[in-house]
């Protein structure tokens, strides 16, 4: 094995990333354990977070504002969307702040830095598995939802959410190294994003041309896809989906390159 150390920036080495998969696994585990070890309720928090938001949304948007929910009980209607949305928001926020949070290790040991935001996204996705169990219980209680072949498409939607979160996280993490204020920008983006995505309301009440604008948002398709697959409402996959899909692909590829250019001198900036 020969390592060459020089100022030039070689292309991102994805094979090296594969060699470090063990580290990815350990970091995800450490993330989850460290997060819930000191808490009295432990993993119950994962389920509690979307449940609390569901109750608030049900009271404000379903109750007070009386928003229609395509004939589905409003709590189940919004929880189905909150599920991928919250995992996505957490994944984007955690991966954007992950480099700064792991400075202690990064300053002392070499490993492909890409592992760090990747681990943050994976740890957030694990939350999704737990809250999906909660959703199944909710669906059983309320009698909402239809079991169909469409469930098999759910992993695809999760992958789209993860890719979007990672693209945002990589760009933000690389930029936040130079400009620290950007670290908080992702948090604000997520706060605004939940209203630019049909989480609290149904896409069916949005008039044109606003609907076409919403369809540029990749998370529109994730959230609507979850409803389409699980509840039989929502929006099925359409050709319009290709534009955000392509955009996410481009943002992810460029994000990996930008992140890689940054990672080699990251410690000099922090």
């Amino acid at each position: 094995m020969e390592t060459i150390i020089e100022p030039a920036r070689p292309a991102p080495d994805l094979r090296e990333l594969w060699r470090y998969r063990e580290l990815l696994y350990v970091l995800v585990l450490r993330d989850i354990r460290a997060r819930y070890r000191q808490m009295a309720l432990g993993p119950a928090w994962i389920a509690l977070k979307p449940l609390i938001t569901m109750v608030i949304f049900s009271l404000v948007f379903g109750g007070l504002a009386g928003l229609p929910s395509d004939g589905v009980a409003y709590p189940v209607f919004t929880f189905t969307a909150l599920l991928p949305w919250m995992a996505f928001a957490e994944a984007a926020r955690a991966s954007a702040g992950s480099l700064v949070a792991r400075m202690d290790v990064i300053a002392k040991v070499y490993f492909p830095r890409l592992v760090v935001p990747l681990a943050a996204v994976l740890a957030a996705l694990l939350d999704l598995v737990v809250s999906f169990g909660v959703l199944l219980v909710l669906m059983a209680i309320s009698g909402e939802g239809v079991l169909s072949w469409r469930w098999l498409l759910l992993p695809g939607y999760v992958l789209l959410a993860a890719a979007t979160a990672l693209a945002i996280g990589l760009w933000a993490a690389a930029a936040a190294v130079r400009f620290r204020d950007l670290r908080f920008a992702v948090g604000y983006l997520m706060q605004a994003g939940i209203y630019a995505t049909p989480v609290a309301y149904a896409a069916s009440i949005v008039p044109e041309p606003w609907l076409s604008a919403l369809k540029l948002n990749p998370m529109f398709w994730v959230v609507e896809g979850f409803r389409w697959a699980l509840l039989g409402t929502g929006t099925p996959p359409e050709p319009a989906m290709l534009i955000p899909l392509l955009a996410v692909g481009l943002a992810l590829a460029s994000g990996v390159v930008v992140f890689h250019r940054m990672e080699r001198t990251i410690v000099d900036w922090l």
Partner: protein
Amino acid sequence: MIRVEGLGKRYRIGGEPTLRALLRSPRAALQHETIWALRDVSFIVQPGEIVGVIGRNGAGKSTLLRLLGRITAPTEGRAVLHGRAAALLEVGTGFHPDLTGRENVYLNGAILGMSRREIERKFEAIVAFAGVARFIDTPVKRYSSGMQVRLAFAVAAHLEPEILLIDEVLAVGDAAFQQKSLGRMGEAARAGRTILFVSHDMSAIAQLCSRAILLEGGHLAADGPADSVIGAYLGQTESVHIDEGVVAAQPQDAPIRIEAVAITPEAVGTGDPLTVRIHYRAAEPLAAPGFVVTLHDTLGVEVVRLSTLPISGFHIERIEGAGHIDLHIDSLPLTGGLYTLSLAVTRPRVDTLVALDRVATLRIAARDLYGSGVLLTRSRGVVPVAHRWSLHPSD
């Protein structure tokens, strides 16, 4: 093998720009004063060699190790490492305080590039080497800093990399663990591994390294046999070197602090008189304190131990405020070579209030004490003895 060719690193100085500053005047925000921490450094380290890296603070030692450990990229030049490299820089490398010792061993091993199976196989040996078996399922935040360093070093030492980069980590462990670690590094080198070792402890460098490189202001100032490079570092005239960093590192809230240490004369040789002056300041009146001075040779053996109490029977009623205490040695009974001097203030037979380990390095000049033309260096024993021979053939 490590091959370094014209390696250089330039750092920006000053804080990071904020987005606001960037929007206001992009050019000014992106412009920065720069400083070369390392420049035009070239050398080759062969397999099985242990090379010590010495130099004052800010000379570029840590920068060199960070470049070779791929923590950051160089600005110019290049380096080639043949074989798996592991860097052990500073204390508690990447431990998470909330996780247990066991979990941190796996985490740390994975960070250093070990597979889970490899860690499992070596787990018992790592824990035994660190001596933390009883606490392995306790969160590391409850470990002492010494225990954390021992565990971190144990993981790295069992990684069995072809190249090991070590930066001053051993300064934290106790004397016994330091010796164990130095022994482990020596074994690794005999097994054909390449080691680059940064330390302020000249006796450790002299003990472990056959070769040393000296950095001064980011440049390579000397490269050669450890003894002569250490000699160049300490200066041919300056044979007493006091490490101000050790003096400065004392805890601020200790009941007594050592404010300065002075050793006279500046050049000492075997049989010379020596005075050690310790300036102290006691925050509160201190009854019956003990002052301790020890000398260690390059093998870490304590060759001299002197204390006001109990060893010398010099009773001090009490001390209050600032002052100094002198230790006069009439004749230094040590052969030529490197020795380190440590100081401590104790409550005799109770506890240690403050300890300055290896605060000074003495390069004792060898003398021709026996008038034979042979300079008495460390290889001629530690203790010169007044003696005479007489031959009595029977018949």
